C-alpha cells in the first residue's frame, strides 16, 4: 500500500505561481491513501486566484486507455494551461506525463510505502516484496523490514538495550528473531549457509 502526502507549499508554489494550471486528482484507489482535504484546500486557493483552467477528479489514472479518453474531453482546458498538476501516487503522474508528452506535468504529492496490503488493516508487519522471502530462516520475522540495515546474516553491533542504533524506538529486528528462534527451539536455523541477497530477482519475473 502507498500513502501520498501533499508536497510542501515551498515546493509547489514556484511551479504554479502566476501560471495557468490544469488539475488532476486521483481518488478512490484502495491501494493509496490520498490527502483529500489538504489537496482541495490548496486547489481552492489556486482557483480563487484564477489560475485553474479545469479539474478532473477520478480513480485509477494509472490506467492509460481509460485516462486517454478522459483527457480527450478536457483537451481545450489542458491546452489553455501552462502546466498540469497531478495529485496522485508516482505511477499516476508518470502515466499522465507519458500521454501529455508536450506538456509540463508536475507531481503535487510525494509517495511513501505504507505497511500492509489491500484488505489488511495497516499493521506493523511490513513486506518489501523483495522476491526472496527469508521468513523461513528467521522465525517469521522479516529481516529486510525489521532490521534498519536489512541484514540477512544476523545482528550487527549496533543494538543498545535491545533497541536499534538508527531508531531508539524500534526494537532490534535480529534480537527479536533470535528470541523467537530460541522460543521455538530452532536456533539451529542460524547455522544456515551465508545468505547473499539477489537484487536481480525482480527482473526475472
Amino acid at each position, binding site marked *: 500500500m502507498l500513502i501520498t502526502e501533499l508536497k510542501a507549499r515551498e515546493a509547489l508554489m514556484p511551479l504554479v505561481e502566476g501560471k495557468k494550471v490544469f488539475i488532476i486528482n486521483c481518488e478512490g484507489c484502495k491501494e493509496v491513501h490520498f490527502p483529500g482535504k489538504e489537496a482541495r484546500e490548496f486547489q481552492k486557493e489556486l482557483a480563487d486566484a484564477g489560475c485553474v483552467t479545469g479539474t478532473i477528479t477520478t480513480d485509477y489514472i494509472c490506467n492509460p486507455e481509460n485516462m486517454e479518453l478522459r483527457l480527450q474531453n478536457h483537451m481545450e482546458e489542458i491546452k489553455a494551461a501552462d502546466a498540469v498538476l497531478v495529485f496522485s501516487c508516482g505511477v499516476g503522474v508518470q502515466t499522465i506525463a507519458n500521454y501529455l508528452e508536450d506538456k509540463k506535468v508536475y507531481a503535487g504529492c510525494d509517495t511513501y510505502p505504507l505497511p500492509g496490503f489491500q484488505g489488511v488493516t495497516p499493521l506493523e508487519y511490513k513486506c518489501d516484496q523483495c522476491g526472496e522471502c527469508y521468513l523461513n530462516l528467521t522465525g517469521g520475522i522479516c529481516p529486510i523490514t525489521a532490521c*534498519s*540495515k*536489512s*541484514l*540477512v*546474516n*544476523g*545482528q*550487527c*553491533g*549496533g*543494538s*543498545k*538495550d*535491545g533497541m536499534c*542504533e*538508527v531508531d531508539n524506538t524500534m526494537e*532490534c529486528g*535480529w*534480537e527479536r528473531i*533470535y528470541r523467537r528462534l*530460541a522460543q521455538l527451539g530452532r*536456533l539451529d536455523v*542460524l*547455522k544456515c*549457509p*551465508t*545468505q*547473499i*541477497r539477489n*537484487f536481480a530477482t525482480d527482473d526475472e519475473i
Partner: protein
Amino acid sequence: MKITELFERGEFVVSAEVGPPKGFHVEHLLEEAKTYLKGVHAVNVTDNQSSVMRLGSLAMCKALKDEGLNPIFQLACRDRNRIALESDLLSAAMFGIENILCLTGDHTKMGDHPQAKPVFDLDSVSLLHTVSKLEEGEDLGGNKLVGEPPKFAKGAVVSPCSDSVDAQLAKMERKVAAGAEYFQTQAVFEPEKFIKFMEKAKQFGKPVQVGIIIPKSAGMVRFMNNNVAGIHVPDEMIEELKKDPEKAKAGITGVEIAARIIKECKPYCQGVHIMALGWESKVPELLKAAGI
C-alpha cells in the same frame, strides 16, 4: 605480514587503530604512527568510521605500509556494493596489504551525511564469504580471476559486552563459517563480562583480541554509555576519572584503567586491539603499564 602468522606462533598480538583525517594531508598522522605505533604488530585503518566521511582506508593503509608499518585494511559494507568491495580487495592485494577486517558498518544516519544512501549490499558475513571466494580464484559473480588469487588474514569484529551477547555469539559463529580467522572486539570495560564471553567463544577456535579504549574523562565515558552500543563503563571507573580531573586530563588515570583491563583479560584472549581515538601518543606507556 599476516597477523594470523603471529597468532600461530603464539604471540600476544597487539594492534592499534588510526582514523584517517577529513582531508588529504596525512604527514602528521604518519609521523604519529611512526613515533608511537612502531611497537605494535599491526595498525588498523578505519573506514569512514561512525559514517563520517574521511580519507579512504585503503590509501592510508598504503601510506602506512610505505613507512614500514603493517596495516589492517578495514572494509565496511555501508558505502560500497559487492563490485566495489571486491575491486578494493584486489587493489589492496596489489599494494601488498595482507590484513583485512570485515565489518557491516554503522548506518549512514549515525554520521555526518545522514541523507546518504546506505548500501549494505553485503554484510560482514557475506563479505567474509566473498573474500574466501576471491582467495579460491573466483569472484562473487562466479567469474574466474586472472592470475594468482589474493590471500589475506581475514578478521572480523564481535561485541562481547553487548546486552544481546547470545545473538552476537550466533553471528560470530556465522563469521567463522564464512572464513573469519581472527576477531577484534568492541571496547571492553567490564573484564568479567569479557571473560564469560570468552568461555563461550573459545569453542570457535579463533584468536580474539580484546578491544581497549583509553578513557579520557568522565564526560567521554558517560557519552559512550549513553550512545555507543556494546559499551558500558561501570560507575566505579567514572568515579575514578572524576576524582582527579588533572590526572585524568593528563591521561594517567585512563592509562591506569586501560592497563588494568588488559591485565585482567590477557589470560583469556590472544591479543589486544587499542582504539586510541587521538591518544596514539599514550599507546607505548599503556603497553608498558600492561606488561606487554
